[in-house]
């Protein structure tokens, strides 16, 4: 089946701002800073934007707040909120809106001063998690990791390989927060925070903003950057709270990734580079399994031996990921940005030579919502 949405939008500009620590900046300041970078990258004016997607941890009505702050009156807006995966869902929404003629140029934006604010804002804890004083989302992921170890014999060393690979990629990215060398032994020796996850199995807590400009393929080709084409995208959600996750070792990725690949007309073998939302090391292992890069239960062995690190057979999280690049509360948009940088050939020392197809994958809440996007360079459309 050929999807009517394949190739019907393109990323024309990307920007990040205030990554790591941004004293004095509000979430909306950081979002606006990234927007300024993205429109400069695309070579458009703020007034060219007529569609807005976005969300933050601090705004109940995000597209209203974004539009007002930036002085944009959007013809179309969408704030689908599924957690960190939201911004990949926004790419699909934007593609539909552009294809339907509702708008021409969509800003997808995010900002967070999580590190300064020290709280998750309006992130609401489900009733039966609040009752138990759950420090969400860490315990849920820890229990998924524990279950994966129990069912498949996955080891802490294998999870540590994910953190080590992320750090090696981060060392190739000038904007990455964490640059110091890291070994498997370092990860194993770091303090346990929620068994079996140690501190270095967990993503960073950062400030930062991110923005992407999406437009029609025709407009993107007329702009200054090589267009990064939307080839496919699909989401799936199975639960909201931890106790309602049907199977702690299989994520909704197993449902949405095949749909995204079908829309894009690819298989995993076609992916040149993969960007996965690595809130915790176990996430990468489970997403690779659920996407079909390896069988269920074999993800630990798959990531071992540097396979996903620089020089390995499958480049994963080439910016350093949420584990070592930056993680301002919701990371999803950064997977799109790094995928775009790779497909534009703009990734500097970490560039994957000849990258034509990238997978970007977002995760929301506790393996609750997953969204897989497939992006391609000019050769793929």
């Amino acid at each position, binding site marked *: 089946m050929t999807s009517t949405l394949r190739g019907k939008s393109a990323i024309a500009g990307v920007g990040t701002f205030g990554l790591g620590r941004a004293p004095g900046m509000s979430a909306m300041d950081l979002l606006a800073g990234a927007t300024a970078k993205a429109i400069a990258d695309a070579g458009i004016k703020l007034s060219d934007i007529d569609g807005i997607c976005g969300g933050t941890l601090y705004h109940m009505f995000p597209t209203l707040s974004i539009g007002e702050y930036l002085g944009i009156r959007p013809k179309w807006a969408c704030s689908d909120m599924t957690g960190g995966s939201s911004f990949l869902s926004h790419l699909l929404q934007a593609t539909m809106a552009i294809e339907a003629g509702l708008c021409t140029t969509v800003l997808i934006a995010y900002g967070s001063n999580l590190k300064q604010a020290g709280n998750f804002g309006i992130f609401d804890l489900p009733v039966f998690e609040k009752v*138990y004083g759950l420090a969400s989302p860490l315990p849920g992921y820890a*229990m998924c990791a524990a279950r994966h170890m129990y069912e498949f014999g996955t080891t802490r060393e294998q999870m540590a390989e994910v953190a080590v690979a992320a750090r090696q990629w981060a060392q190739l990215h000038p904007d990455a927060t964490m640059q110091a060398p890291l070994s498997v032994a370092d990860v194993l020796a770091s303090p346990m*925070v929620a*068994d079996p996850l140690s501190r270095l199995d967990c993503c960073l807590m950062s400030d930062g903003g991110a923005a992407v400009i999406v437009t029609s393929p025709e407009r993107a080709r007329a702009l200054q950057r090589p267009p990064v084409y939307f080839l496919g995208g699909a989401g799936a959600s199975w639960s909201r709270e931890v106790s*309602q996750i049907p199977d702690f070792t299989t994520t909704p990725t197993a449902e949405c990734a095949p749909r995204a690949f079908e829309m894009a007309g690819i298989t995993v073998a076609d992916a040149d580079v993969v960007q996965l939302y690595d809130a915790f090391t176990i996430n990468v292992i489970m997403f690779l399994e659920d996407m079909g890069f390896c069988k269920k239960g074999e993800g630990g062995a798959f990531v071992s031996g540097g396979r996903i690190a620089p020089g390995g057979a499958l480049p994963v999280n080439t910016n350093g990921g949420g584990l070592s690049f930056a993680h301002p509360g919701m990371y999803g948009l950064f997977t799109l940005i790094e995928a775009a940088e790779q497909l534009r050939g703009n990734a500097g020392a970490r560039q994957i030579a000849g990258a034509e197809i990238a997978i970007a994958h977002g995760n929301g809440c506790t393996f609750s919502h997953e969204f897989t996007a497939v992006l391609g360079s000019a050769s793929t459309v």
Partner: protein
Amino acid sequence: MEAMMDNTSTPLGPEGQFWAHLRDGRLMIQHSRSTGQFVFYPRLIAPGSGADDLEFVEVSGAGTVYSTTTIRRPAKHGGDHNVCVVDLDEGVRMLSRMVGCAPDEVHIGMRVQAAIEPVDFGTHANSEQPIVLFRPALCVSETSS
């Protein structure tokens, strides 16, 4: 769902009824007579089937640990504690905490027994409302014999 009032004649919804039963010392879980499905957390209609004949029935409280973690905290912040997910024998899954053994003695597959107890954490900290915790099944039988 049967109507139920609290002691000030305020109508209780599904969740309110669950808490009221716990105050009476009973672990009651919703069950649909038409589909045989047990449902937790409490809802007005059953997920998936949409069955609207949910009624609270008392359950054994016996279950098995599906997964578990030890949350590491400095002693000045209360020390380590357990968080677990338990499959009740009736087929519903609950988030909870294990007490009555060291947090890291809890393991997947462990047989456990629900205990309705007051707590000093979470929504109902230091209140009249007890919540559902779990204890090792062996400990319960030892203390009751």
